[in-house]
C-alpha cells in the first residue's frame, strides 16, 4: 500500500538549490533561521504528517463530518491534531515575534504546509484557516479585540474562518447582502446567511470566529460598501463566560472530495442577537480581505500540488510492482510479465505527473519566497517584487489546481481498474483535488484577474517585472551546454505570449471589454504553461550545478530532474502553440453566442 506522499529529497532540492532559501536567512528578519533549523523543522513536519495525518487520510473521507442539527461532528483525530499544531507554535508561526509568532519565512512554512497537505489535505485546513483569520485580526482589529480573540485562536481552541460567500454572492462578492445594523453599544447586529464556509462549525473547537463580510445598513452598493467583521459563534460575556451569539449552523454540504472538513451553511441573527465587531474602517472590508488573498491563493496552489504529489507517489509505487505484459519485442508468452513501469507509455504518464507536481511545487515555493523578500525589501525593489507576485498569483493558484486534476487522473490511469476502485487511494486524490479550481476564486475569475487587472496594471509594470525575471533565467541557461536549446524555446514562447497579449489588449483599447476577457481562461492556461516551463529551466540549472558538486542528491535523481525538464519542454510547452492559435482564431466568438442558442 502507498506510504510515500512527497519526496523529501525534491523538497530540499527546490528549497535549497532552486530557490536558495538560505539567502533569506541573511536578512535580519529571518536571521534566527539556518540550514540546520530548516532541516529540523521539515523533519518535525514530516513526523506530524506521518504520525497524525496520513494514517487517517482515507478514514476521514469514509467518515465525513455529520450535521447533528446544531453542530457538526468531525473525525476524532482532528482535535488532537489541532492541539498539536497549536502546541508546536504552527498556527502563528509566520507572525512576527512581537505578536508572539516565530517570524518564520513563508517559504519554509509553505514547504511544511505542502507536507501536511500531501499527507491529508482535509486535516491540514483546520489550523490553516485559523492562521488566515488571525492575520486579518492582527492587521486590522483594535488591540482590545486582538486580546479577546487571538490568544484562544493561537492556542487552537477557537477555529478561525473566512466567511465571504453567500447564496447569491459567490464569484460576485460585490453582491454580498448580509447586513450589519449599527448600534450605540460598540458592536453591530448582523443578519444574513453565508454558505460554503469551511470549518464554519464543528465539535473539535470550543468556539468559531468568523471573519465575515457584511454590508453596513445604508452603505453604498457594490464593493465599496462592504465591511469586515469579527462574528464569533459564541461571544465572551461580561463574566468572561461564552454566550451564544446567534450564529446558527443550518447545514453541512456533502461533497465529492475534500470530505474530511465540514463546509457549512450559516444563518446569522435569526433571533436578532448576532453581534459583529467591525475591523478597521467601514466599507473597506473587501480591500482588507485582499490583503491576504495572495497568500490564500498561493495556499490553494500548494494544496493542489500536494495532493497531486501524493497521487504521483502512489502511482509510482504501483507501477514498479504491478506485473503486466512483456516488452514490446518479446513474443514468448512463457516469459514472465514485467512491471508496468517498463512500458514507455506508463513512464510518460509518470513523467507527466512528475512534471506537473515538481513544476508546481517550484512555483509555489518561489511565490512564498517573493512574499518573504517583499517583507524585507524597500523602495523600487519592493515594488518590482510586488509586481511579480501580483501577476503570478492567479497562475500559482490555477496551474496546480487545473493540472492537479489532470495529474491525479493520470495517477488513476497508471493503476488501471484498481485505480478506479477505492481499494487504492488515487481515486480519493482525484476527488480531493477537484475543489481547487473552485474555491478562492474560480479559474474563470483568475483568468479575468490575470488579463483584466494584472496584465494592464501600472501600464504593464507587472508584465515587465515578470519578463525581467524570466529573461534572467533564459540568459543564464543560454550559456550552458545542454540547456541552451530549452532557453531558446522558452524565449520563443515568451515572444508568442507577448504577441497574444498585444492582440488581446487591442480589444480593450477599442472598448470591447467583453471580447477582451472572453478567452481570459485560455490566456491564463497559456501563461501557466510558460511559467512552469520557466520553473523547469530553473530546476535544470540547479540540477546541473548540483551534479557538479558531489551532491547528496545522487546522480539518478538529478538525471531524472533533467529528463523531466526535457519532458516538459517536449510534451507540455508545445501546447502554447495550439492555445495561441485558438486565441487568434476564436475572434472571441463566444461573445456572440446567446443563451437561446443552447436551445435543445
Amino acid at each position, binding site marked *: 500500500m502507498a506510504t510515500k506522499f512527497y519526496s523529501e529529497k525534491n523538497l530540499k532540492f527546490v528549497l535549497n538549490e532552486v530557490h536558495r532559501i538560505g539567502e533569506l536567512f541573511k536578512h535580519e528578519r529571518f536571521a*534566527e*533561521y*539556518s540550514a*540546520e*533549523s530548516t532541516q*529540523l*523543522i521539515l523533519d*518535525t513536519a514530516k*513526523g*506530524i504528517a506521518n*504520525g497524525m495525518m496520513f494514517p487517517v487520510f482515507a478514514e476521514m473521507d469514509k467518515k465525513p463530518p455529520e450535521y447533528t442539527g446544531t453542530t457538526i461532528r468531525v473525525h476524532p483525530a482532528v482535535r488532537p491534531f489541532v492541539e*498539536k499544531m497549536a*502546541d*508546536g*507554535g*504552527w498556527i502563528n*508561526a509566520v507572525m512576527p515575534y512581537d505578536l508572539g509568532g*516565530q517570524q*518564520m519565512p513563508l517559504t519554509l512554512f509553505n514547504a511544511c504546509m505542502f507536507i501536511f497537505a500531501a499527507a491529508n489535505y482535509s486535516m491540514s485546513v483546520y489550523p490553516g484557516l485559523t492562521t488566515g483569520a488571525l492575520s486579518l485580526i492582527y492587521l486590522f482589529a483594535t488591540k482590545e479585540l486582538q486580546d479577546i480573540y487571538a490568544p484562544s485562536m493561537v492556542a487552537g481552541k477557537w477555529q478561525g474562518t473566512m466567511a465571504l460567500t453567500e447564496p447569491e454572492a459567490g464569484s460576485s462578492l460585490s453582491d454580498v447582502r448580509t447586513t450589519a445594523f449599527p448600534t450605540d453599544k460598540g458592536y453591530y447586529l448582523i443578519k444574513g446567511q453565508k454558505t460554503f464556509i469551511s470549518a464554519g462549525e464543528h465539535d473539535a473547537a470550543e468556539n468559531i470566529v468568523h471573519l465575515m463580510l457584511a454590508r453596513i445598513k445604508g452603505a453604498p452598493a457594490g464593493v465599496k460598501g462592504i465591511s469586515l467583521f469579527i462574528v464569533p459563534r459564541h461571544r465572551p460575556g461580561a463574566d468572561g463566560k461564552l454566550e451564544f451569539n446567534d450564529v446558527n449552523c443550518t447545514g453541512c454540504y456533502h461533497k465529492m472530495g475534500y470530505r474530511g472538513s465540514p463546509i457549512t451553511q450559516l444563518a446569522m441573527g435569526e433571533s436578532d442577537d448576532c453581534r459583529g465587531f467591525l475591523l478597521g474602517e467601514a466599507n473597506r472590508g473587501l480591500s482588507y480581505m485582499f490583503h491576504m488573498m495572495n497568500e490564500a491563493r498561493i495556499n490553494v496552489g500548494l494544496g493542489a500540488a500536494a495532493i497531486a504529489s501524493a497521487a504521483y507517489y502512489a502511482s509510482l509505487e504501483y507501477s514498479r510492482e504491478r506485473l503486466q505484459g512483456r516488452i514490446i519485442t518479446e513474443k514468448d508468452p512463457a516469459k514472465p510479465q514485467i512491471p508496468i513501469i517498463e512500458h514507455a507509455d506508463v513512464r510518460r504518464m509518470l513523467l507527466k505527473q512528475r512534471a506537473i507536481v515538481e513544476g508546481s511545487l517550484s512555483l509555489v515555493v518561489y511565490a512564498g519566497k517573493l512574499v518573504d523578500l517583499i517583507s524585507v525589501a524597500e523602495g523600487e525593489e519592493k515594488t518590482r517584487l510586488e509586481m511579480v507576485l501580483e501577476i503570478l498569483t492567479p497562475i500559482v493558484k490555477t496551474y496546480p489546481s487545473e493540472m492537479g486534476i489532470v495529474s491525479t487522473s493520470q495517477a488513476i490511469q497508471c493503476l488501471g481498474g484498481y485505480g478506479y476502485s477505492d481499494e487504492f487511494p488515487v481515486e480519493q486524490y482525484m476527488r480531493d483535488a477537484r475543489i481547487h479550481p473552485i474555491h478562492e476564486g474560480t479559474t474563470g475569475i483568475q483568468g479575468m484577474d490575470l488579463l483584466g487587472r494584472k496584465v494592464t496594471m501600472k501600464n504593464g509594470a507587472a508584465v515587465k517585472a515578470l519578463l525581467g525575471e524570466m529573461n534572467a533565467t533564459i540568459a543564464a541557461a543560454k550559456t550552458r551546454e545542454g540547456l541552451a536549446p530549452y532557453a531558446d524555446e522558452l524565449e520563443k514562447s515568451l515572444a508568442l505570449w507577448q504577441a497574444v497579449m498585444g492582440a488581446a489588449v487591442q480589444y480593450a483599447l477599442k472598448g470591447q471589454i467583453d471580447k477582451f476577457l472572453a478567452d481570459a481562461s485560455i490566456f491564463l492556461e497559456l501563461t501557466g504553461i510558460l511559467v512552469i516551463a520557466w520553473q523547469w529551466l530553473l530546476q535544470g540549472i540547479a540540477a546541473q550545478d548540483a551534479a557538479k558538486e558531489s551532491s547528496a542528491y545522487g546522480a539518478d535523481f538529478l538525471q531524472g530532474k533533467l529528463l523531466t525538464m526535457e519532458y516538459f519542454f517536449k510534451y507540455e510547452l508545445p501546447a502554447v502553440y495550439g492555445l495561441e492559435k485558438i486565441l487568434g482564431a476564436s475572434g472571441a466568438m463566444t461573445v456572440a453566442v446567446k443563451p437561446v442558442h443552447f436551445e435543445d
Partner: protein
Amino acid sequence: MLSIIVCIKQVPDTNRASFDPRTGAINRASAENIANPDDLHAVELALKLRDACGGRVTAISMGPPRAADTLAEAYALGVDDCVLVSDPAFAGSDSLVTGKILARAIGKLGRFDVVVTGFEAIDGNTAHVSYQLSEFLGLPHITQIHDLMIEDGHAVIERLYGHEYQKIRVELPVLLAATRNTNRVRAPRLADLKSCTGKDFTVMTMADVGGSADEYGTAGSPTVVIGTEVFAHSRGREEIRGTTDEKVEGLMQRLKKHNILRY
C-alpha cells in the same frame, strides 16, 4: 528534583539506506543521519519524568563531532543540557566499550537518579549497550516500560513482559530502556527548533573520561565480526480455502507459525 541522564545515538537511517550486496555493510553515504528512534522515546520518557517530578535532563551522546546534530534535536525536544563524548580514540568501539565509555562519562557528571537509554539502535540492533551500561554503573536495568511513577526514592514501573503484566518497585538510581511502545514522542515546538542549533553543549574527550587509548576503539573492543550474510526476503502468495471459520483458523495458524501472533 531528579537528575536524569538520557543516552542518545546518531545513526544512519537504515530504513532508507542502501547496503553493499556483497558484504552486507551499510553504505553510510547513502543514508541520512538521524537520532536513533528508540532513543527519542528515551528522551520523551526523561522529559515526562522531569515535567512530573521536577529536575534536569542531560542528554549524552558518544560519537563523532557531527553527532552534535542529534544533541540539537534533543535540545529542541526540551532537554536542559547536552554532552558530546567524542574522541578519535573512541572510533570503532564495539558495544561493550561504548557501554564502558558512557558509564565513565556519566560517572563524571555527578549525582544522578535515573539513566534512560533506547532499547536498541537501528544500525547494529545488538541491544547490548543498555544492559552493559547498567552493569558498568551497577544499576538495576528495566525494560518494556509502559508507565512510570517516582515515589519517595523509588521508581514504580508498569511493564508488559511477554504475556505478563508486571508492576514493580525499584530503588533509585535505576537504568530504564525505552522502546516505541513506551510512549509517543512529542513534536518539538517551532521556537525550540529554531534556537536549538545555536545552543552550547559540553564536549568530553578521552582526557575527561579517563583511561587510555588501548582500552577504547577497535584496540579495546573484543567483538569480532566473522561473517555477514544477506538474506533475501521473497514474497509469496498463498490461498487459504474453506469455510470462514476454517479460513480464520488457517490464518491464525500461519500467523503463529511465523511468530506474528504468539499467544
